[in-house]
């Protein structure tokens, strides 16, 4: 009887995710335009990727992205969460505002940044230029496009981490904090020896999720630059998308998807181990 209860979830999940995912893995070894019959080509798609400069740029960008998001937003989130703990009064109000960008559609946020801030015509950037500052639109420069996108993502993202860390910090046992205070711990010692170790599981989990999400990043890149200029801000997910739907090279797209998954796999294993432990209780 209870087996029937879980059937709808499993069925939908299998039909939409698992079966097509298996097809993708198989397609990575075929040449296919999405219409005619697929042709088996062995490792040719992967060989082609190996020699493709755009692929390496995209992979590099995903790694930069991961490094950036493992440090900056987690750092800001932790510091601000502690500041909320110190401030106490108004903490709830601050955290609601910090969280606000998370509920707004990425398309909207991307267009606001693009048109109102970065744009040399309609944005704050253009105003600065007219006032004589030598600012550039970061999205149009190959060397800065990725960071221009990352700034937008980071701006909308850190508040989420801050809220999570703040919630975790409030769970740190009161006695530990009291006894540290009685022994005369300074604020930084408190951070280092009581608060941070107290929320270590949460930090670990967020770092694992960051690695996974960093290899999935798509929306902001696709909307802001489409991977340009000259593929300088291409990431693996936009490369796969473009290959499949613009170039109709579904086999190549599948190969890229497999690469993304391989990178996420180690992190996923950690994630399941960490989360699974909680289920045992």
């Amino acid at each position, binding site marked *: 009887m209870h087996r029937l209860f*879980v059937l709808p979830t499993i069925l939908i999940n299998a039909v*939409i995710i698992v079966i097509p995912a298996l*097809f993708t893995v198989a397609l990575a070894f075929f040449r296919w335009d999405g219409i005619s019959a697929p042709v088996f080509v062995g490792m040719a798609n992967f060989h082609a990727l190996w020699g493709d400069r755009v692929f390496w740029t995209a992979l590099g960008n995903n790694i930069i992205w991961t490094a950036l998001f493992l440090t900056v937003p987690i750092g800001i989130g932790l510091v601000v969460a502690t500041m909320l703990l110190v401030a106490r009064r108004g903490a709830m109000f601050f955290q609601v505002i910090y969280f606000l960008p998370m509920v*707004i*559609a990425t398309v909207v946020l991307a267009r606001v940044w693009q048109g109102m801030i970065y744009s040399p015509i309609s944005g704050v950037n253009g105003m600065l230029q007219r006032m004589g500052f030598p600012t550039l639109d970061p999205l149009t420069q190959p060397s800065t496009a990725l960071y221009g996108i990352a700034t937008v993502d980071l701006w909308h993202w850190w508040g989420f981490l801050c809220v999570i860390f703040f919630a975790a910090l409030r769970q740190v046992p009161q006695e530990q904090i009291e006894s540290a205070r009685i022994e005369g711990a300074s604020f930084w010692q408190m951070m280092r020896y009581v608060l941070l170790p107290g929320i270590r599981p949460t930090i670990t989990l967020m770092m694992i999720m960051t690695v996974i999400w960093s290899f999935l990043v798509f929306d902001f890149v696709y909307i802001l630059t489409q991977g340009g200029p000259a593929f300088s801000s291409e990431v693996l997910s936009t490369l796969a998308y473009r290959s499949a739907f613009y170039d109709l090279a579904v086999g190549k797209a599948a190969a890229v*998807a497999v690469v*993304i998954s391989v990178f996420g796999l180690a992190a996923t294993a950690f994630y399941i181990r960490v989360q699974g432990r909680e289920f045992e209780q």
Partner: protein
Amino acid sequence: MKLIESRATLVLTYAALVFLLLVTLFPLALLLLNALKPSAQIVANPLAWPEAFRWDNFTRAWSDARFGRTMLNSATLAGLTIVLVCATSSLTAYVLARRKIRSWKILTFYLLGTTTAPIQLFLFPLYFGFARLGLVNSVVAVSFVYTALWSPFAVMLLRTYFLAVPKELEEAALIDGATPWQVFTRVMLPIVSPGILTVALIIGLYSWNEFLIALTFLQRADSNTAVVSFLLLSGQYSSDWGEIMAAALLLTLPVIVLFILLQRRFIEGMAGGSVKG
């Protein structure tokens, strides 16, 4: 808890917090401000107060982005997805929380695993499969895709609500001769309804804002969601930023109002779902 007494530290802390508040709100303030301005005034100075309020930005945005049609599509899609996710996930969450089946552990790991799968890993065969079956441009088909994507999240969140229900309630009902189905619908569901409401809110929000799947599967003009028609508008008329910001505001306002009214639920649902597991 009191961490520091020093007044200077407290002042500095508040200064930093307010600074970040302004950083967070600045782009959103620009959105609000420029939605009311004529394009020429935005180009002159995006920071200036509107000289004359241009309410027609909104009417033009509404018709150019075809929001009458596309917002209806978005709402239908969100509604269908909410019903599907809540119905299927509450069943699964109950079974997993109470370990009703022997394979509960494998199923849990399986669901956790699929949450981390990149969309691109299943998108391409799914798209070409849907195309062959004539399911592209079908809002119903997309609601099933969303259900598959987000039900693991919903299951994990609802599971914690089911865990909080005392076992005795269930046992008492069983002794009185209730079937498993009756136990679930009559005893469990009413108690976890706050959890289901939270899930419904979050799923509705995700569905309203979702970009990649909607862009790929709902291409025909009359099946676009509001997010996609906004993207098309901002690409086409890219010079009229007043109109684009007005459209952005129309798209965002319902979400912000809901968020402000029900902030606790949103934050607990979105942050809790990924923390507690």
